[in-house]
Each structure stands twice: as structure tokens, then as C-alpha cells.
């Protein structure tokens, strides 16, 4: 009961490969339909697409390039474990400071939240440069204002945030319990 011709595994592979951002399954379906792949049974089409993607992912399992399910889409990326070899020749951007990373973590878990809420959790005031660096990297975005006096901006994470961490959705962030599961307060 195949609805997607065999050739389209390659077409989808090329499609994902050619795009700058993770490719959603929705746009893959669109591409299939545009290329006259039968679309009578959408569930069957979607299921088969899923199979093809898994098959592709399998094919790249042992390669230097991998197919990842990221930020609600699919994207080819270099294999994680090759990083030590690649960073010797690829210029890396500056890493986020500890303050920026913590602020990002607070926003990820408490979004949408205000600057005052972030400051309250960290117990220190939030430097403008920290917010600026997060905004510049398109990791956070304003999501309206809070209905309190002064109408402070509410912050949330972006699609790029997921892409940056290689996560498919916010659900993939570790649960509180998981983080505390390992032996706490080791000072070593």
C-alpha cells in the first residue's frame, strides 16, 4: 500500500538538504502533493512519510552528517561526536556567558516572564548586555506585555532557541525531577 514512489526518498533527502532551516513535515507533504503524489489518504501519506524519514535517519546513522528532528522539523547537521575535530578548523562564535545561559534557562522554564521575575530568581539585577546578547542571537523574543503597572515586556524563547540546543520542542527540556535525580550538591 505504497503511496509515495520510491524516488521520493531521494527527493525528500535533497529537499531537507537544500533548506536553510529545519523542514517541517507539512512542507514535505506540500512538496509531495505538488509533485502529484496521490493525496487521497492523508493519514497514509503522513505515515509513509514518517517511515521514509526514519529510514533516512537510519541511513545516516554512521555518517559524518546526521538527520535530526529539530524545532518541529528535520535538518541535516554534523555528527555531535565529531566536534573536537571540527572545532580545530571551524571558527566558533562566542559561547554565552553564565549569566546569559542562566537567564535563558529561566526564560525557557518560566516563559512568558518579565525582567523583574528573572532578576528575582537569580537574586541579581539583569545587565542590559545579557538581554542584548540573547536578543542578538535570536534566542529570545518579546511576547507582549504583562498586565501590571508599567506594562513590562514578557519574554519567551524562539524557534532558534530550540535549533541552537538541538531540541525538537520545549517538552524536550529536562524535567526538574530528572535534573535533581543525580546526586545533589556534589562539590567535586
Amino acid at each position: 500500500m505504497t503511496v509515495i514512489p520510491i524516488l521520493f526518498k531521494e527527493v525528500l533527502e535533497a529537499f531537507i538538504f537544500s533548506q536553510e532551516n529545519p523542514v517541517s513535515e507539512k512542507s514535505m507533504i506540500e512538496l509531495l502533493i505538488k509533485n502529484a503524489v496521490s493525496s487521497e489518504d492523508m493519514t497514509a501519506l503522513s505515515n509513509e512519510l514518517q517511515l521514509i524519514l526514519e529510514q533516512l535517519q537510519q541511513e545516516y546513522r554512521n555518517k559524518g552528517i546526521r538527520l535530526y528532528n529539530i524545532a518541529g522539523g528535520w535538518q541535516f547537521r554534523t555528527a555531535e561526536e565529531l566536534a573536537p575535530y571540527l572545532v580545530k578548523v571551524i571558527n566558533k562564535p562566542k559561547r554565552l556567558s553564565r549569566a546569559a545561559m542562566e537567564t535563558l534557562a529561566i526564560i525557557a522554564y518560566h516563559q512568558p516572564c518579565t525582567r523583574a521575575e528573572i532578576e528575582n530568581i537569580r537574586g541579581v539585577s539583569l545587565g542590559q548586555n545579557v538581554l542584548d546578547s540573547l536578543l542578538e542571537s535570536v534566542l529570545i523574543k518579546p511576547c507582549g506585555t504583562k498586565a501590571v503597572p508599567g506594562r513590562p515586556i514578557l519574554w519567551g524563547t524562539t524557534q532558534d532557541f530550540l535549533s541552537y540546543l538541538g531540541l525538537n520542542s520545549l517538552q524536550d527540556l529536562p524535567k526538574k525531577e530528572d535534573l535533581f535525580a543525580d546526586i545533589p550538591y556534589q562539590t567535586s
Partner: protein
Amino acid sequence: MSELIDIGLEQGIWETESFVVHLDGFEGPLDLLLQLARTQKVDLSKISILQLVEQYLEIIESARKIRLELAADWLVMAAWLAWLKSCLLLPEKPIDGEETEHAVDLLQERLEELEHINKVARWMNDRPLLGSEVFTRGYYEDHTEIDSSGVVLDISRFMNAYVGVARRKSKKKSWRIRSFNFWTVRDALSRLKRLLGQSDVPGWHVLDAFLPSYTSLQEPGVTIDMISRRVKAAWSGTLLAGLELAKDGQIQLNQKEQFGRIQLKKADEEIKQ
């Protein structure tokens, strides 16, 4: 415990914590408190707040001996913790006791929350990050093609264009009407002079005789109404030209009665002089 303090030495941000505390390495008093709590090596909910408070106050006290300009928020925290310590040591006041319990809970909650965030930040930092450890394709292909063979054609722009042409055309027409050839005074002057020069008939002539012929005023496309206006223009032109010549003494004009016929003749020699 003053050996805990080593002010001026930056602590590496992601280095594992040692027992030595560098104030500059901490992101505020809460961060320091969390670090002190960690050294108790127990669950945050079971830490000894009293011990924690004592450690913090001791550090701040010895730090102040070295650096008087210790930041306000460190000192505010110290004051608040000093109050908390006094309450914990003197638990007999029942009202204060409740308040103290609440304060302890609050401190514990905040430390737990901060600990959580610390762990998340560390977890995030340890992930293979895009651009640092993993990389996407460096080159993108654009398979979009722009098809501009079609034309935008909406009826309103189309009609507008046609109306535009028509209006321009009709404006041109009315401009030409205004530039019609009227008999000017100058035309009349030259005609009068010419006819007088040719005329070998002495005596009076009616002015009408010097008007251009009716047929010469007729042109194809010119309405009857327009012709009668041309005739009137020729009349007034000729009259003005006659008056001009009379002023110069070249002719004599004569009108016997009001609205009567105007007559003219060449001036006599004696009048000319």
C-alpha cells in the same frame, strides 16, 4: 573562616566549585548562599539555615575588613539574614516564630529555584550547541524560480487609462478653439492702408467696405456662431484701425448720427500738414 575569601581572584565561570569562595565570582548574594548550601552536601530542603546564615555573615564580615565598598545588595542580604538568625536563636516568641518559619521557607524555595536554574543552564551548556559543536550545511540551495510571464491587468486601471487618453485629447481640442484667427487691429491697419493706397476714388467710403469678405472668415469645421463672432471682431478691429489712422491724420472719419454709418476718406493735403 577568613581563608574562604580570596577577593580579587576571578573564579572560572564553569569550573567546578572549590571550597574557597571568591566573592567576585558569584552572581550576587543568593548565588553565594547556594554555593554555601551545596557545601553542606545535603538535600536543599534539609540544609541547616542557621549554619548557612552564620557562614554567610562570617564571609561578609571578613570581606568588609578588606573591602569596605561591598555592594549594597550583599549587605541587605546580610542584614536580613542577621535578623533571621536572631529569630532562629530566639524561637520562644510565637508570632515571630511563624514569620521566621515563613522566611526560612522563602529562602529555601529561592535557593531551590536557583539551584534548578543552575542545573538547567549547565545542562544547556553541556549540550552540543549549534555553531559551537554541531554545524548545519554551510551552503544553501535556492530552488525558487520567479515566473513573471503573467500580467497584472485590472479593469479599473484599464478603464482609467482609456479615460485618461480621452481627457487629454478633449483638452487639446479646446485649446485649439481658443487660438482661432480673429481679425486683429494690426490686420485691419494693414488692410486699410493697402486699400486706401490703391484707391483712386476720392471722397467718402463706408467703413463696411474695408471689412474682410464673409467667405474668407468661413473655414471648414467652424460653426455659424463662431463666424458671427469673427465678423464682430473684424468690425471692431477695423474701427480701431480707422481711429488710429485718423489720429495720425492720414484719414478723415465721419458719422452723421448716433449708430449711423461710419464713413472715411483719405485726408486732404492741407489737413495732413
